[in-house]
């Protein structure tokens, strides 16, 4: 696995330098025939076929399939194909793409639990339909042998169906009992078991009442609630897992005069690693050779690329933009700062699951209540009639009547309706309790770069440039792949400028571009390189011959709806803050533009999370909106969090909601919907309780026939679902 590349004598052209190394990286993928890419930006039919066509046009790719629901593509390719080349091709075609580690994602790729629940639901509904059909005959007056036959057929369908469909409830109830706790599933399992047991006994004795239909209907309604709940939860795959999948899996290690490709996790402190332009740095360490510019926005939120020269510290996850560098490893694998942030996210997520939702609160009251009522009814009837059969029948009826069909549907039905409504407005809800938490928010914290801004820089005062300056700047900017140069070239092209005829265009990695314009040397790049005073804001500098240096300033583009959102939130009395990793002047200037007074600049990732926790300690319910790796810990620590679709997969995984549209306006809508939804959930609980208050006395009095049980169960579940649908 060793190839020969000579790092001691890099050629002037980074591409030539990259070729042998690139071939070598491909060698490391020899075993991976299946690649996974994250596509955070795709959203429509054109994206699907665009991505698939781009991927399939790449040499060596046999098949590519996009999964729009998961925003991923899986690629079947020959061993020579490497994911980075595919990502580059997609980026060129206009689709943002990241490599994912297929091994780590294998567990979440097929939603086995969701499929199992859906299958159980299908069986339960099938069985319920058939048993109900047979029960209608009994309710409408069949008696004698006909009734017994109907009961026996019902039993034959219901018993295996209930055994299969109820497994999620039984196992959850068992584990709760083992831990000496009570949960919703304990009364559910007991009700099913008791209903089936007494009904079978009644059927054997040619009794009048059998509750097979009620037992299976109970299963079906509850499974429907469970499945809706699972659907909203399945989208919330663990943020820590996604972070791990995003980590750079391979590195080029220099040993003696040769380079070899190794897994990043195998690197040891003191090793030398080569990082090519366009690659991500795999370790924390120090630059020992080469000049370049780094995109640190993933770690710090800074928009401006930072220069890196020998002696500078670099971190895993940062992208190398312009020149090849050699890095001495300080920390690798689990010890890097990137991994540490991942751990923070996992810890914060675990903390948030302690949130007591309305449903949990209801269950806490409900489970003991039901057991007490049915036990009392059974004891009372046993003392009154001294007949165990009657007492058990009554207890079963009480358990069935009180069983939380409506309660089980009350929350998932509302959450699903609200999710559908918000999805149409451009917001994806990933966490079941996110809406409840959003309804309580009184403080909103925004990240700057990529959240309130569009992530793109916009060149200012292009009109101030003279025609020749504009033409020279355009030609120079075309010679670089630096983000500012690209933005400048784009801006000038839109203004209708034509490039000046330049010769000898050379990009000096880490500094800028220089060329000859006739006999005049011209340069575009960093202030220090042009011996100019650096300006306070983001800027690039142009010098033509001996003329004075001309700065070209850039401003962050404001995201759609950002200003309106800040104003709406302030009007409602929500405290609005901005936390950014960017430098103070840029943050303050931007805060003034968007209308936020409280701004915190130069915040490191852990500082952001700490600040959110400090706010929470003061009793604030914090909404965090952010998009970068530096925000993930803060997103996970906040009471509720939102990230834009352009955010890193890890940031999206760490947040409760994802904005699919470009505009921030949907956030205000989400808060309205959250408050309505919270109201609906409470209404649903009231409705469910009202049905119980009506039906329980009937059941305790022994007047509850299977027909009344079926009616009460179906109407309460229907009312609750219809009430939830009003939200659409």
């Amino acid at each position, binding site marked *: 696995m060793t190839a020969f590349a000579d790092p001691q004598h890099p050629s002037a052209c980074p591409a030539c330098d990259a070729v042998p190394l690139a071939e070598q990286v491909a060698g490391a993928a020899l075993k991976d025939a299946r690649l996974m890419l994250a596509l955070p930006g795709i959203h429509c039919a054109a994206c699907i076929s665009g991505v698939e066509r781009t991927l399939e046009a790449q040499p060596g790719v046999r098949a590519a399939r996009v999964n729009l629901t998961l925003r991923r593509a899986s690629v079947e390719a020959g061993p020579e194909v490497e994911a980075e080349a595919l990502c580059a091709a997609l980026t060129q075609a206009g689709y943002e793409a990241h490599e994912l580690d297929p091994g780590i994602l294998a567990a979440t790729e*097929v939603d086995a639990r969701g499929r199992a629940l859906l299958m159980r639901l*299908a069986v339960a509904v099938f069985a319920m339909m058939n048993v109900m059909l047979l029960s209608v005959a009994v309710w409408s007056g069949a008696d004698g042998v006909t009734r017994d036959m109907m009961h026996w057929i019902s039993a034959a369908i219901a018993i295996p169906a209930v055994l299969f469909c109820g497994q999620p409830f039984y196992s959850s109830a068992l584990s709760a009992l083992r831990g000496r706790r009570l949960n919703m599933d304990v009364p559910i399992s007991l009700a099913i078991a008791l209903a089936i047991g007494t009904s079978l006994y009644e059927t054997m004795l040619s009794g009048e009442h059998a509750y097979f239909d009620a037992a299976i209907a109970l299963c079906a309604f509850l499974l429907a609630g469970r499945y809706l709940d699972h659907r909203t939860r399945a989208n919330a795959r663990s943020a820590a897992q996604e972070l791990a999948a995003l980590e750079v899996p391979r590195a080029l290690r220099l040993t003696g005069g040769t380079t070899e490709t190794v897994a990043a996790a195998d690197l040891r402190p003191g090793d030398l690693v080569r990082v090519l332009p366009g690659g991500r740095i795999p370790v924390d360490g120090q630059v020992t050779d080469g000049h370049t510019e780094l995109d640190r926005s993933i770690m710090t939120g800074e928009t401006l690329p930072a220069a890196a020269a020998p002696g500078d510290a670099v971190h895993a996850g940062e992208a190398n933009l312009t020149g090849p560098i050699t890095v001495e490893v300080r920390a690798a694998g689990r010890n890097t700062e990137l991994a540490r942030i991942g751990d923070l996210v996992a810890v914060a997520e675990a903390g948030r699951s302690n949130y007591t939702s309305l449903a949990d609160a209801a269950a806490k009251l409900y489970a003991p209540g039901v057991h007490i009522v049915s036990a009392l009814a059974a004891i009372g009837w046993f003392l009154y009639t001294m007949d165990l059969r009657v007492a058990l029948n009554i207890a079963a009826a009480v358990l069935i009547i009180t069983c939380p069909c409506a309660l089980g549907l009350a929350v998932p039905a509302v959450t699903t309706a609200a999710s559908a409504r918000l999805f149409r407005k451009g917001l994806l809800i990933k966490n079941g309790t996110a809406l409840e938490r959003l309804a309580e928010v009184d403080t909103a914290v925004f990240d700057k770069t990529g959240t309130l801004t569009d992530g793109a820089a916009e060149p200012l005062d292009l009109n101030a440039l003279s025609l020749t300056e504009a033409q020279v700047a355009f030609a120079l900017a075309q010679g670089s792949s630096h983000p500012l140069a690209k933005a400048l070239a784009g801006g000038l092209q839109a203004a209708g400028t034509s490039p000046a005829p330049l010769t000898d265009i050379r990009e000096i990695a880490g500094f800028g571009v220089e060329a000859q314009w006739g006999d005049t040397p011209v340069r575009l790049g960093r202030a220090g390189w042009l011996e100019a005073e650096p300006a306070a804001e983001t800027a690039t500098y142009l010098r033509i011959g001996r003329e004075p240096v001309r700065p070209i300033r850039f401003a962050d583009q404001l995201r759609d709806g950002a200003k309106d959102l800040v104003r709406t939130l302030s009007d409602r009395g929500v405290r609005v803050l901005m936390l950014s990793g960017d430098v103070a002047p840029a943050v303050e200037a931007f805060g003034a533009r968007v209308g936020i007074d409280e701004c915190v600049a130069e915040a490191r990732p852990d500082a952001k999370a700490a600040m959110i926790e400090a706010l929470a300690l003061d009793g604030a319910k914090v909404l965090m909106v952010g998009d970068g790796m530096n925000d993930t810990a803060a997103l996970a620590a906040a009471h509720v969090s939102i990230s834009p679709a352009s955010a890193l997969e890890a940031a999206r995984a760490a947040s409760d909601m994802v904005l699919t549209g470009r505009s921030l306006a949907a956030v205000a809508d989400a808060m309205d919907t959250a408050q309505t939804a919270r109201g609906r959930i409470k209404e649903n609980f009231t409705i469910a309780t009202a049905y119980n208050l009506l039906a329980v006395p009937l059941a305790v009095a022994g007047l509850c026939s299977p027909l009344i049980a079926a009616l009460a169960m179906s109407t309460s579940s229907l009312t609750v679902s219809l009430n939830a649908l009003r939200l659409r």
Partner: protein
Amino acid sequence: MDILGILIPVSLLMGGAGLVAFWWMLRKGQFDDPEGDAHRILRDDYDDQPK
């Protein structure tokens, strides 16, 4: 009432056929990417070679 002897098995068989069809679709991954499938159906280039 003899008709019940035919109708009950028929209704069970028909429901069962639906259940088996659903099980087959679930196994084949028809519900893995509902969002993508909703968009794919609108594409002309899948008409000849659906995938």
